[in-house]
């Protein structure tokens, strides 16, 4: 009848009345009807039980997560303010990916498949930051950086040639991470191939540094969201106003950085971040290291003393 309701049919009185009490004989023992639904109390109790189970489950999961977070917390000491200390702290952090890579080696002693990150870049705009990130990661794991010239390139600046010599000639299978840089006849923005099958890639040096930055755990954006936003903001400024900006805009970026660096040692917060790496990279790429505002100059020099910056191929300076 309830089914018929919405159809707009007229109502009928029930033809049979089931409400009448049947008189049951008492000669047999009593049983609860198997057809009738469970009465109120047992039904409710089962629902409560279910709910309680779920709550316990959630609590357990929360405990687990909490333990994991605690574990991570031990590894994640905030970086110190001074430049050399910053690097050591960066390296002291446990790299999640690195751990995984090392675990790989532990598991399959004989067959270790390296992870290969392929970046294509124009020789006219060498992504210096990739070399810095290599040095940064290289302090913890064995990283091989190899460069290749693509056949689409018929003439290239000779300094790119000399980059080959800077590449360590260790075996691929001895390394845990391989970064392959391919010089190719492409636009300004370098490209990182994430998934060759789907041909999905990351465009732009800034984004590649973000990607590589997440190899260091916790990544730059795993911690305080405000710091992460500030880093992101700086990266965007560098991308839009420095890499793709005119001279005036570039000077504007440097001026902003100068103000920031007047108050603190690093661009964002009190530690070395990928924002510093990126700004350093574009200054070197544009050969502006001799023509910097005072605070930026000081910052630049202090970074130059850092191993991860000083240990770069000669060709990048010149």
């Amino acid at each position, binding site marked *: 009848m309830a089914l018929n309701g919405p159809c707009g049919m007229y109502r009928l009185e029930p033809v049979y009345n089931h409400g009448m009490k049947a008189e049951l004989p008492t000669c047999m023992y009593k049983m609860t009807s198997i057809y009738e639904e469970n009465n109120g109390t047992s039904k409710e109790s089962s629902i409560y039980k279910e709910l309680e189970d779920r709550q316990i489950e959630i609590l357990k999961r929360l405990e687990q997560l909490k333990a994991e977070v605690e574990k991570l917390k031990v590894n994640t000491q905030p970086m110190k303010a001074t430049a050399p200390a910053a690097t050591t702290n960066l390296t002291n952090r446990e790299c999640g990916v690195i751990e995984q890579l090392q675990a790989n080696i532990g598991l399959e002693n*004989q*067959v*270790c*498949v*390296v992870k*290969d990150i*392929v970046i*294509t870049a124009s020789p006219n705009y060498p992504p210096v930051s990739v070399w810095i990130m290599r040095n940064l990661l290289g302090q913890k794991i064995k990283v091989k950086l190899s460069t*290749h*010239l*693509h*056949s*689409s390139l*018929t003439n290239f600046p000779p300094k790119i040639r000399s980059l*080959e010599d800077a590449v360590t000639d260790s075996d*691929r*299978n001895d390394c845990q991470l391989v970064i*392959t840089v*391919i010089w*190719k006849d492409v636009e300004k923005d370098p490209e990182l*191939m994430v998934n*060759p*099958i789907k*041909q999905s890639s990351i465009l732009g040096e800034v984004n590649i540094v973000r990607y590589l930055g997440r190899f260091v755990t916790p990544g730059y954006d795993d911690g305080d969201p405000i710091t992460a936003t500030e880093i992101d903001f700086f990266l965007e400024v560098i991308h839009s106003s420095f890499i793709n900006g005119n001279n005036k805009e570039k000077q504007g970026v440097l001026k902003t950085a100068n103000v920031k660096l007047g108050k603190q040692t690093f661009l964002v917060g009190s530690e070395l971040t990928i924002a510093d790496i990126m700004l350093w990279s574009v200054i070197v790429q544009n050969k502006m290291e001799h023509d910097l505002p005072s605070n930026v100059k000081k910052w630049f020099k202090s970074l130059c003393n850092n191993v991860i910056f000083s240990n770069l191929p000669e060709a990048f300076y010149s």
Partner: protein
Amino acid sequence: MLKGEEGDLNRINSPDDKLSMSKKALKKQAKEAEKAAKKAERQTQNLIKEGVNTEEDYSSGQYGKLPMNQSQKKIVRHLVEVKVLDLNFADQKVWVRGRLHTSRAKGKQCFFVLRQQHFTVQCLVSVSETISKAMVKFVALITKESILDVEGHVRTVFQKIESCTQKDVELHVEQLFVVSASEPRLPLQIEDASRPENEEDPDGLHIRVCQDTRLDNRILDLRTPTNQAIYCLQAGVCELFREALKKMGFIEIHTPKIISAASEGGANVFEVSYFKGSAYLAQSPQLYKQMAIAADFDKVFTIGAVFRAEDSNTHRHLCEFVGLDLEMAFHYHYHEVITVIGMMFVEIFKGLRDRFSAEIAAVHRQYPAEPFKFLEPSLRLDYPEAVAMLRETGVDMGDEEDLSTPNEKLLGRLVKAKYDTDFFILDKFPLAVRPFYTMPDPHNSKYSNSYDMYMRGEEITSGAQRIHDPEFLAERAKNHGINIEHIKAYIDSFRYGAPPHAGCGIGLERVTMLYLGLDNIRKASMFPRDPRRLTP
């Protein structure tokens, strides 16, 4: 004449004659037909001769068929090559020799295209004060593919001639002689044989010449611009191979092709009679180039025919092909050799890209393909990496399994997608899939110091560090179940001290085919030999 013919036909067809048609009549009919054919032939010949015969022909002496060249006279005449004809020659009078590619007569003028290798130029003969009607007629009747000597004025054209390689000029003919005439009926048309394989073009003609027709009439087929370019490029591969290796201090050696025992296993060898006994055709110069290393030649290469009696009719197998083999003693690690081979390939690819761009473009016009991409230095991946890449896409294969042909192709595509290169080196193959003389990997006995190189996802060469220790070699051979007596000479050649060495063998036809992106190895072999073809 025509009337008479008609009368004859009527007579044959009349009912009276039909009744009395006997053997004799049939014979007569045949005779008549023959006569008619002769008549027709004479007619055409007359047409050709007409000019000569008519007294009014003021162009006589300016055209005709030259007598067979027996080197009667030394003619001092500068023949200009078709490929250089351009605006710089405007209004000059030049002599050109070439083949008649196509001709089209239209009343008082006749256009024809003169071809020299794959260069073509448009020529024009039209009736004028110096050129008679008879001469134009003569030109119109010359059979295609005949070789002509043409003198004419180079004239610039107002509209580019798209059908020729020389687009800016045409030749206004003054004199024309047939040097060597072609048969009137060609087994295949050069135009059909050189038509681009463009499936998408709905308006294009879809007349194709099939592979067997091409191979049966190979000399005609080879005249197409594409084939001219393919074999120019193939010569370039050889030249660059020599050039690159010589630069790196290799010397060229020659190894015997008739050998006493099969070099790589007993199967797939051709047996030939050798005086009272029998001998085999070399499957590879493997043994001999290694012996040259043991004899202190340090770095050697050889280019020569290699024979494989494999009864497989695939797109990439031939029974006889040209092997580019090299072998080299190294100092401490076989990667020294891989680096040399990689450098050599890069040199070859760069040379082809820079020196043969016109030829590559010509081939790709008929057989469209992506340009060949490579990296410098060459990309080197390890076998486990390749297996991991394949597994990631869902291929199920074991660690020590060899790559199947489809997997090879897939791997080629994956590497291309990731690194954007058509050429790469795959190192560290499983030992189990390699010949007995391959050096095992020192750190992991499952793998070996061996490598394959791939172009467009197809293997072009395989090589390895060879075992240079006679005792170990004998042990490995035993493991492979090879009778040591049969390879005694091979093992013995390492008994008097041999440097560690590695090398590889490359198939010239495969390199040519894959560099150009052709679909069949027969397109890259001038006179291919396969299980079904021994001629031409």
